[in-house]
Every structure is written in C-alpha cells, then in structure tokens.
C-alpha cells in the first residue's frame, strides 16, 4: 500500500476488491444475525472502488464547508482580535482575499499540480482548468467513493487556510500587494509539491518506493499544512522584521471576544479538516473526529493549566491558544492514533506550544506577531513526531499487520523525523528565497508612516469601528 490518507483510494484497488466481495456477500444475506453489541464496521470503506457512496459524499460536502469556515470567519476572527484596533480590517482582508485568490489558483492549476499524475516530485497537467474533474455527459468522475470534484473542493479548502495561517506572522506591517504575490508563489512552490509528496504518492508518501524512509504518516496535514506554514511564518517574521515599537510599546489584543469566537469556530471546523480527511463517513472518520475533539479539549486544559500554575490564573486567551495547539498537534495523527491517545497528544501540544510561545519566543525576541511558529510550527512538528509514537494498527493497518508506532514497537517514528526535517528544509529554503526576491522588487513592508497609521487606513482606506 503506497499511501494512506487523502489520496489513499487510488492505491487500494487490490485490497478493496476483496472487501467488495465480502460486502456483496453480506448484502446478499442481510438478515444474518449480528449481535448489535458485537458487530463492528471495518474502517476500510465498504463501498466498492468505483461506486459512489452518497453517505460519504454528504459528509465530504459538509466537511468542505466546515474547512472553509475555518479560514473565515474562524481564523479571520481569531487573528483579528489579537491585533491592535487599527489593523483589524487588515488581517480580515488578508484572510478574505486569500479565500478568493487561492481558490482561483487551485481551479486553474493548483489541484493539477498537487494531485495530477503519479510522478514522485510534482503533479502534472492532467487536471488543468478542471479537465477530468468536471462532469462529462452528466456523469462526474470519481475519486474513491466521492466525485473527484468534491475531492478537489475539500483539498482546495486546505490550499486556502495554509497560506492564511502564515498571515499571523507578519500581521500589522506587511504590504498587501506583496503579500498577495508571495502567497501565490508560496502556494505553487511549497504547498503544491509538499501536498503531492505526502498525499499523492510522492516521495514523502508512506509506502513510496523511490524514497522509502521519508514516507510520512500525515492524516490531515501536520507536515503539509502546519509545519509548512509554521516554519515559513518564522522565516517571514525574521526577514520582515519586528513591528515598530515591538518590545517597547504594549500591543495587547484589542478584542479578545473575537479571538474566542474564532478559536471555537476553528474547533468546530477542524472536525471537517480531520475527520473529513478520511474522505468517507466511515469508522476511521469517527475515530479521527474523536481524537480531534479530545486533543482540543486536552490542549485547552494544558495551556490554561500551565498559566494557572505558573501565573496564578488561567486566561481566556490561554484556553483558546491551547485548544488550537491541541488541534494542530493531533492533525497528522488523527487517523492513525486511538482517540484516547488524543488526550495525551493534546496535553503535549498545549504545554509544548505554551512553552514555545512564552519562554522560547521571549528568549529569541523574534516578532512572530500572532505566534504562528509557536503554535503551528512547534505544534505541527510535535504532532508529526507523536504520530510516530502513538500510531496503531488498530486504527490504520499501514504495516500489514506489523507494529506501527513506537509504543507498539514499530519504527514509523524514523520516517516521521525524516519527513519533518525535509519539510522544514523545503519551507525555510523556498520562503527565504521568495522573500529576498520580493524584498528587492516590490518591498515587503509598508512604509513607517503607513504602519503607524495602521493597515486598515493605509492599505484599504477603511476603519473597523466607527462609533462616533
């Protein structure tokens, strides 16, 4: 079996055939006595390859909607509450505009570059301009048990949120036009290759023969989404530089109610993100849903617990940051670990990111304004490694019956480390080069005056709240 997550269906043909036989048999004898207590459903799709399952499809449509909701209103609120009042629209605008921009890129060539063909390094032109994705003569091509259109949509929502996450690193100072160009290039040169490597049988796909040691178990985007964006964010923060007054002026969040609304919307939307990554409404989707839910809860408790112990009281921002950290951390493993491990992973994520956003950040004094590195970079990396520890064949038998995670005695942790390292390198290198080029050509930052005035007015000519 070559790959095991979003592009999983394609490589499952042979095993599935057997399943279909069994399913067919059981269909033929529907009355045969299961005890309701003991009966179980296979995590492997019961739907035959090549037959659409409308239950799966219903869940995937809902999941796509949920993941779009994560970027906005979710992330837009989460981030915009954390900046100063004069930049509230600037942050929202970056999120909303990226929803438009990345979607069009995805339609034109992004999906094709990510999921076209079988090459080890990059997709091909197979699905350019939605060819081979759209309906032909009233029939929609399938990917697994859902229309390929829906696969394209669901994956396209990830292509929006990943760059949108980076926005937090250079909040309150980046030039809007440069941001837009950067994101198109970043999406094309970091996201699409990475996505292809991990989820379309590329070099980082577990089971890939070309590069067998780096195959990552990444159910919903630990490497592709969180590590890539979190690491790139750190590079952005370092190259773009600190905000004026950073360290001397107070820059407290201007509206924590928005941050809380956004964070809880992220929690809700993340069910689509993680459980949707099963690409089916099967048992594994349920398992991923539960692991996600438990990790968010545990992350919330861990971060606010750390605050409670170390600072005397838990804060709402802490609880919200913690739940997001828990969600980030469970993302790669959500479909490989047991839900109860989600509690452990969430605790680790909450505490680890707390540490990264407090001790580490104040030690090195980079201005990663909204802690994209601290939460997504650190949380994603932690999650990728912990997947190698907790993954179990009970949830996904990716080693043909052999042990998977460290706890079972398996060795995927090695692959996880290699894949993570490669992702770090790719993200750092490409982001660094892109920013250097853009700095020389367009300029990365707004002028000092514009920064002082705030991005709302200087970049968009609007104000957030007008109460007089």
């Amino acid at each position, binding site marked *: 079996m070559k790959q095991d997550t979003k592009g999983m269906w394609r490589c499952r043909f042979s095993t599935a055939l057997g399943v279909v036989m069994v399913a067919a048999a059981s269909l033929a004898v529907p009355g045969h006595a299961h005890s309701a207590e003991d009966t179980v459903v296979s995590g492997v799709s019961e739907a035959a390859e090549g037959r659409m399952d409308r239950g799966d499809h219903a869940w995937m449509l809902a999941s796509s909607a949920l993941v779009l909701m994560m970027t906005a209103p979710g992330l837009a609120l989460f981030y915009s509450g954390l900046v100063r009042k004069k930049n509230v629209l600037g942050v929202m605008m970056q999120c909303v505009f990226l929803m438009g921009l990345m979607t069009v890129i995805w339609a034109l060539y992004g999906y094709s570059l990510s999921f076209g063909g079988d090459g080890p390094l990059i997709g091909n032109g197979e699905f350019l301009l939605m060819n081979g994705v759209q309906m032909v003569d009233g029939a929609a091509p399938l990917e697994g048990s859902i229309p390929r259109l829906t696969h394209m949509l669901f994956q396209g929502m990830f292509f929006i949120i990943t760059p949108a996450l980076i926005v937090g690193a250079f909040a309150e100072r980046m030039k809007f036009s440069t941001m837009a160009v950067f994101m198109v290039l970043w999406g094309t040169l970091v996201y699409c290759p990475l996505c292809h490597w991990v989820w379309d049988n590329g070099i980082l796909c577990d089971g890939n023969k070309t590069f067998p040691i780096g195959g990552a178990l990444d159910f919903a985007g630990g490497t592709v989404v969180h590590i890539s964006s979190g690491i790139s964010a750190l590079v952005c923060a370092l190259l773009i530089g600190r905000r004026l007054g950073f360290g001397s002026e107070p820059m*407290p969040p201007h509206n924590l109610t928005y941050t809380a609304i956004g964070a809880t919307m992220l929690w809700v939307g993340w069910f689509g993100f993680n459980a949707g990554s099963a690409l089916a409404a099967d048992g594994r989707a349920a398992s991923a849903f539960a692991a996600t839910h438990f990790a968010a809860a545990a992350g919330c408790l861990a971060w606010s617990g750390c605050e409670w112990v170390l600072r005397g009281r838990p804060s709402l*921002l*802490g609880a919200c940051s913690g739940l997001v950290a828990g969600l980030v951390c469970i993302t790669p493993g959500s479909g490989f670990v047991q839900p109860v491990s989600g509690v452990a992973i969430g605790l680790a994520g909450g505490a680890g990111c707390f540490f990264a956003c407090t001790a580490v950040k104040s030690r090195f004094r980079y201005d990663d304004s909204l802690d994209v590195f601290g939460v997504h970079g650190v949380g994603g990396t932690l999650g990728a490694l912990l997947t190698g520890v907790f993954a179990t064949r009970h949830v996904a038998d990716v080693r043909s019956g052999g042990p998977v995670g460290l706890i079972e005695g398996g060795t995927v942790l090695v692959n996880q480390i290699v894949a993570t390292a490669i992702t770090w390198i790719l993200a750092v290198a490409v982001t660094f080069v892109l920013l250097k080029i853009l700095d020389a050509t367009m300029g990365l930052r707004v002028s000092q005056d514009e920064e002082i005035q705030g991005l709302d007015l200087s970049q968009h000519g609007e104000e957030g709240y007008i109460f007089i």
Partner: protein
Amino acid sequence: MKKIEAIIRHFKLEDVKSALNEHGVQGMTVTEVRGFGRQKGHTEMYRGTEYTVDLVPKIKLEVVVAEDAAQGVIETIVQAARTGQVGDGKIFVHDLAQTVRIRTGEVNGEAI
C-alpha cells in the same frame, strides 16, 4: 459658574449619579476614560507577553453648577465616590466664563 470634573471608578457611577440627583443636580455629562495614577493598575499577560496595564478604566463626570452650589456638589461626589482605596479618583474644579443652553439660548445661571 463652576465646572466640576470628577474622575471616578466605573462602578461608582450609579451611586454618584443618584447622590447628585438627590442633592438637586439636574444635569451631567459622562465619558469613558482611562486613568493613570497611584493605583498601579495590574499586570495582564497575553500569551506570555506581560503588559503593565497602568491605564485603568475610569469614568469622567462633568457637572456644571452655580458658583455657590459647587462646594456642596464636590462634597456629595467625594462622599458617594469614596471607597478609601487607592484609585478613587480626583475632582478638578474649573471656573467657567459662560454657559449657554442650546435649545433656548439662555445663558449662565438659567442655562444650567
């Protein structure tokens, strides 16, 4: 005429308002402000960054009264607004050159 400007605690507004009302004051203007003073504020912590919040939310109350009523009003405010803790606020008294009621054009004494 005097304009009496009092910086008081948020939650004392209601008490002061009704004390003034009983005392016969018929008008006032209220503004939301933030004050900095001996009350050393507190520390807020946002994701590990510590902020000394020295700007504490306060209420500014402005009352314009006739010359001779001023002292009584000041005392009323002091009494109603006091808790005895640092941060109770200040009263600033200004002399006014003129007062006009916009609706009628009346000035000074009649305008209040």
